[in-house]
């Protein structure tokens, strides 16, 4: 069993598991932090961003000035933003049989895999994962395609040139794998390869293994996966949460008794408690708005935003903010808000019951009804007519490199009354802000990451007791900035095996058993013999038939009638069905009793010697030696067949035959 690790990002995993005869890809996350190296794509012509000076080397060489621009004291690539793909060279991806998706954040690289590697298999995911994943991809494509960029920079990626660049460009890794965004056509084609599954549904893969998605409690439709054969079980835990937010709670019990548990997608901010952060979010929002400032919340169009809107729903009246407009701007805002209300069966119990009241599960419906929350596909069109300040705007993209958020950063960045509140933990907020400096607006970082923290992981592992844990290397040591925080790492026994990008792990367990079925007629013919209470044995002669990874024992074919020309070897061959059957022996020979029996049968002058493996019984008179060991008995006599047979029969008396 092997694990090929194609991504080094612990929360955007992409691993390939080879298990029995199957090749299973676990998630295909897309690392978008690479876009932080690019200039923002402004929706509205920005004089500032369009007149940036080109970058030149220290010696004045300006050959890169078209590709690299200086902005706010940093150097950025002036090009269509690019993403860091999972490894494509470590394993032939056309051999991947299936791809299992855990949640909508972990499928963003799917079109790259399904459309460009020769992949011919099936993708499995739950319905909300697919629907919301589609929204995320659609938004991404829309954000990038609506600001066409003439050029695609590639010169700077040359290794010899990259060395000369200032940080962080100099230190950017895997730049050769960076690719520009896929198209909607590729998205549609990729999504058409997905087969929908439900929680606890058992899916047979070629008869070799069975895969099952389990609720992971993190997002709508988010799953962990069980991959099991008859005798082995691998659990894949990715992006799970034990907090009570909107999704169905995590199914922990089904993860028990795993041979291997692959652990990914823990919280990215283990020191921040989501409840505290939500409080921080609300307080800062209220404080800004009360002072007449605007609040900008860079966010994804689904996920935490539902919880934030729910908190605000409860909070705005008490904080005296009910007249403040909330705007949600995204090409998929409408679909996201509506989708969330229809996936009742994927919601937590509390929200499920609301469906029967009937009441929409999420209170944002009421916010929309009462005109407190308004949503728009973009800042163009209706929004510009309705726009009223002070207000709160939720919009993407959290990287601040594309999407409507770029416009608001340019618009509001100059006033210290305004605040940008970062809630998505995927991007370093300081790096995200780099091209907007100097910035007068207040910046508040309250990352809300509801995924498991290390205390919860430690409890989970104690509860489900896997034999081995495999996790990204980042989880096996405290975070570099807090090296004393021994509590911020996975703590288990035996210690977790760690992986990093482009590594192949041999998983530490061997398969020992295989299940084989016996045809009824063959089973009928068996004559089991009880050799110990509760244990019976029978000899089987059969043909092993293997097809589709299933093994069946069938009755042996009747032997063909002997043809004239063939010579018979033995007389006993006359009986056709048991021609090869010699009885099998079992049991052990008690030496004392054996010696007594020999004496009873007239042998005398018997000596017994102990050896390392057993005993030697010496019949001195007959010059014969009987060597008794655990798994063999030898009678060594001097060419006296009669004596040998006599002795053999005496030995056999102590053994069972069947």
């Amino acid at each position: 069993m092997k694990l090929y690790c194609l991504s080094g990002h612990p929360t955007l995993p992409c691993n390939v598991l080879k298990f029995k005869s199957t090749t299973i890809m676990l998630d295909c996350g897309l690392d978008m932090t690479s876009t932080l190296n690019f200039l923002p794509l402004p929706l509205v012509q920005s004089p500032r961003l369009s007149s940036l000076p080109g970058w030149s080397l220290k010696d004045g060489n300006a050959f890169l000035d078209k590709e690299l621009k200086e902005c706010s004291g940093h150097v950025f690539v002036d090009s269509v933003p690019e993403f860091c793909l999972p490894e494509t060279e470590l394993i032939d991806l056309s051999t991947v049989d299936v791809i299992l998706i855990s949640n909508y954040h972990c499928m963003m690289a799917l079109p790259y895999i399904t459309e460009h590697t020769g992949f011919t298999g099936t993708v499995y995911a739950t319905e909300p994962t697919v629907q919301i994943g589609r929204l995320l991809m659609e938004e991404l494509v829309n954000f990038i395609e609506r600001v066409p960029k003439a050029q695609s920079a590639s010169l700077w990626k040359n290794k010899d040139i990259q060395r000369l660049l200032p940080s962080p460009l100099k230190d950017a890794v895997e730049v050769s794998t960076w690719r520009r965004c896929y198209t909607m056509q590729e998205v549609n084609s990729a999504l058409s390869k997905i087969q929908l599954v439900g929680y606890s549904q058992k899916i047979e893969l070629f008869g070799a293994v069975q895969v099952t998605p389990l609720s992971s409690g993190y997002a709508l439709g988010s799953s962990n996966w069980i991959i099991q054969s008859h005798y082995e079980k691998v659990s894949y835990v990715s992006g799970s949460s034990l907090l009570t937010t909107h999704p169905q709670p995590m199914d922990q019990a089904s993860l028990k008794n795993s041979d291997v548990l692959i652990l990914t997608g823990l919280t990215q901010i283990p020191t921040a408690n989501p409840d505290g952060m939500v409080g921080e979010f609300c307080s800062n929002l209220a404080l800004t708005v009360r002072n007449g400032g605007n609040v900008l919340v860079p966010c994804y169009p689904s996920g935490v935003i539902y919880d934030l809107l729910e908190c605000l729903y409860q909070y705005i009246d008490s904080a005296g903010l009910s007249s403040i407009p909330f705007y949600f701007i995204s090409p998929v805002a409408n679909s996201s808000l509506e989708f969330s209300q229809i996936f009742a069966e994927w919601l937590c119990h509390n929200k499920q019951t609301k469906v029967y009241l009937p009441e929409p599960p999420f209170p944002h419906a009421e916010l929309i009804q009462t005109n407190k929350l308004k949503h728009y596909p973009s800042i163009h069109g209706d929004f510009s007519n309705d726009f009223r300040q002070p207000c709160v705007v939720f919009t993407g993209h959290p990287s601040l490199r594309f999407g409507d958020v770029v416009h608001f950063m340019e618009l509001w960045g100059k006033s210290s009354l305004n605040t940008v509140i970062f809630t998505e933990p995927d991007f370093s907020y300081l790096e995200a802000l780099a091209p907007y400096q100097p910035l007068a607006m207040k910046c508040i970082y309250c990352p809300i990451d509801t995924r498991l923290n290390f205390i919860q992981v430690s409890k989970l592992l104690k509860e489900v007791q896997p034999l081995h844990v495999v996790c990204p290397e980042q989880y096996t040591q405290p975070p570099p900035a807090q090296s004393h925080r021994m509590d911020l790492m996975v703590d288990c026994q035996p210690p977790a095996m760690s992986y990093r990008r482009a590594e192949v792990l041999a998983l530490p367990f061997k398969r020992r058993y295989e299940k084989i079925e016996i045809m009824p007629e063959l089973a009928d013919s068996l004559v089991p013999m009880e050799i110990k209470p509760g244990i019976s044995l029978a000899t089987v002669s059969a043909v092993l038939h293997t097809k589709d990874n299933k093994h069946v024992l069938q009755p042996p074919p009747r032997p063909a009638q002997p043809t004239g020309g063939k010579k018979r070897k033995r007389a006993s061959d006359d009986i056709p069905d048991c021609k090869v059957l010699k009885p099998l022996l079992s049991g052990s020979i008690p030496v004392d009793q054996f010696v007594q029996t020999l004496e009873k049968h007239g042998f005398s002058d018997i000596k017994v010697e102990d050896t390392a493996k057993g005993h030697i019984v010496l019949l001195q008179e007959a010059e014969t030696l009987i060597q008794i060991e655990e798994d063999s008995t030898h009678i060594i006599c001097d060419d006296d067949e009669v004596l040998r047979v006599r002795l053999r029969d005496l030995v056999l008396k102590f053994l069972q035959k069947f």
Partner: protein
Amino acid sequence: MDPECARLLPALCAVLADPRQPVADDTCLEKLLDWFKAVTDAGSSLLLLQENPCLVELLFHVRKPQDLSSRILSFALRLAGTFAAQEDCFQYLQGDPSLFVASAAGQLLVHILDLAMRGPAEGRGPAEGRGRLQARDWPACARRIVCHLEDCLCSEAAPRVTQALHVLTTAFGHCHGLWTQGLWVQLSPLVARLLEKDPVPAPHALVELLLSVARSSVLSSDPGLWETVAQTLSHLSPMQAGPLAAGILKLQDCPQALRIQAFGVLLRPLACVLEAAAQAPGTPGLLEGAAGDQMAVDTLPPSKSVCVGLLCSTLAHLELLQPLPQRPSPWPQAPLLAAAVTILRFCNGSAAPSSELGGHLCAMLVGCVRVQRAALDFLGVLSQGLGPRELVTQVFAVLLEYLVSPDSSPTVLKKAFQATLRWLLGSAVPPSCCDLEPHAQLVLRELLAVLQKRLCSPCWEVRDSGLEFLTQMTRHWGGQATFRQALLASEVPKLASQLLQDPESYVRASAVAAAGQLSSRGLHAAPSSPEHPAGPQKTPLEELLLVLTTDSEGFPRRAAMRVFTEWLRDGHVAVAEDRERFVARVLQAASGDLDWEVRVQGLELALVFLQQLLGACGPGAAPPCALAQALRALCRVQLFEFAFRSLFDCDRPVAQKSCDLLLFLRAKAAPSGSPQEAGESPDVAPVEAALRRWRAGEQGQPLGELAPEAILAVLRSLDLEALRDTLAESSDHVERSPQSLLQDMLATVGVLGDNEADCY
């Protein structure tokens, strides 16, 4: 005992002695015991028994083997103990092995022991001395009890050891006869031997016993005792030894060496924390010379829950010890401060220890709310002492970290606010305290920024403690220039005023208090919100009157009344403008309030007003002209209608308060202006008629216009003293009489019997 109870008692005793007649509940028996205790305290129990032979019969009856319920048995034993404690008429009870059946037996045993030992010991003259009081001289029953205790102490069964230790604890705690010396001399070797066992059995009971012995004036002179205590301190685990150490340090008198040892035990966990956090080994800590890794590993338990428990109890012990006059001296203020700060840093993850132990401690304590609360309380108490400048800086820094952190739970935040306030108070420049120390001034700006955010918290507890903090700060520094500037430059006053509309009533109440305090100091904000940016601006007085008259919950209205009373007392500007109108408006609102506390507060405000009108002329009667003027003012604000009505208020505290108010007024008015002198009697009939109607429960009738003379006449005619005495009796004084208890118990027995019959 009154005759009615004596008449009921035989029937009750018969019921109690009858196993077929179960008694409904234990509380009856407890009340009965309380009553018997009161009766025996008041008179001779021998007499009581002679007059009520049914009691003796009951006690004799209990001795017979039968199916008595354990609760009756326990009751009888405790009753016997009550009698035996006072009289020597119950010696027949001694030595009965069945005495150990109930938990009450231990106490009874002590009583018996006391009774038996007191006789022989006190019979001797002082010349014979205590040395003569040997075990062989003890009465047989006492020898038997002591023998039993000895057996228990030697037993392998922990419950028996515990039981014996409990009996001894009670004995040494309650009995102070010389005989206890003999008993201790006899048993202390066995107690000391418990320490040889591993683990020490019943450690808590042992600690209790030793403390009880150490507190006994008769026994504490025994040098052997202190030796045993010292051994116990070193044998028990830090967790078990903590209460003993704390107990020793609270003693007025004990050997200095032992105090040092005990203090060492209490300090050790904190010393370990300091050691674990030290960047380099050998940093001077709490325990000079004793610190070391080995000690740290031994002291701090590896299990999280035990370690947390140890730290919390250590901090609590030290917190209690700090203000005591007999606390250890020198008090290691600086290292204790350092330890509290370090613990808080471990708890919020900001400590960066380099040692392995430090890492382990960090992993155990990070995010632990219990330890955070205990450490913040302790830190607050330490503000009483001074500390080195850099440590005080660290204290404020860590407090700010807690106040700023989004991860601080509401309870932790509340404690952090409290501790911060104490430190700010402590760091005021003595003795004039008129200004904050420069350092505290720096902190202030950051504090206000935090407060601003906390007042917007979605969690109401946080908003509430933020407002309380603001009120306290304003109370102390409202007159101080730096504070005023910083506060007015911030959003805090505005936010505080917006919270008068908070959906949570507790927060509104705190906002009322804050608004009152801010307004007193002239620091209130003009209320405006994004909702109504251009709305009509109300004065703080109008705002709070609005709360008093319209708020649906009691807390904010009570808070408003407290603020008004304070304003009146302190001569708030808004009040001083037209004091009479202010009082009239407030009383009108308060008198009709449904909440009795608001009405009491209303009367309190009326009393203040009255004192202001009349009190200036010192104790005794007011001069007639001042009185006449005052009475007219009181009539104008309609104080009398409120006060007279309140006399018959269905809530007793209101009536009491009103009684006090009118008594005060009568005292001021009494000698002067009597009707005889005036020569004509005012018409009091309408007032008395109104009073009668109110007494009868007809509240609707108004009193109408009153003449001051009529009021004085009514005041004199009312028997306010009698009314005050009646009100002083608790409202359930009838239900709580012993007679009622006996009747109830008998009645319940009857009912139970009936039910039983119905079942068949």
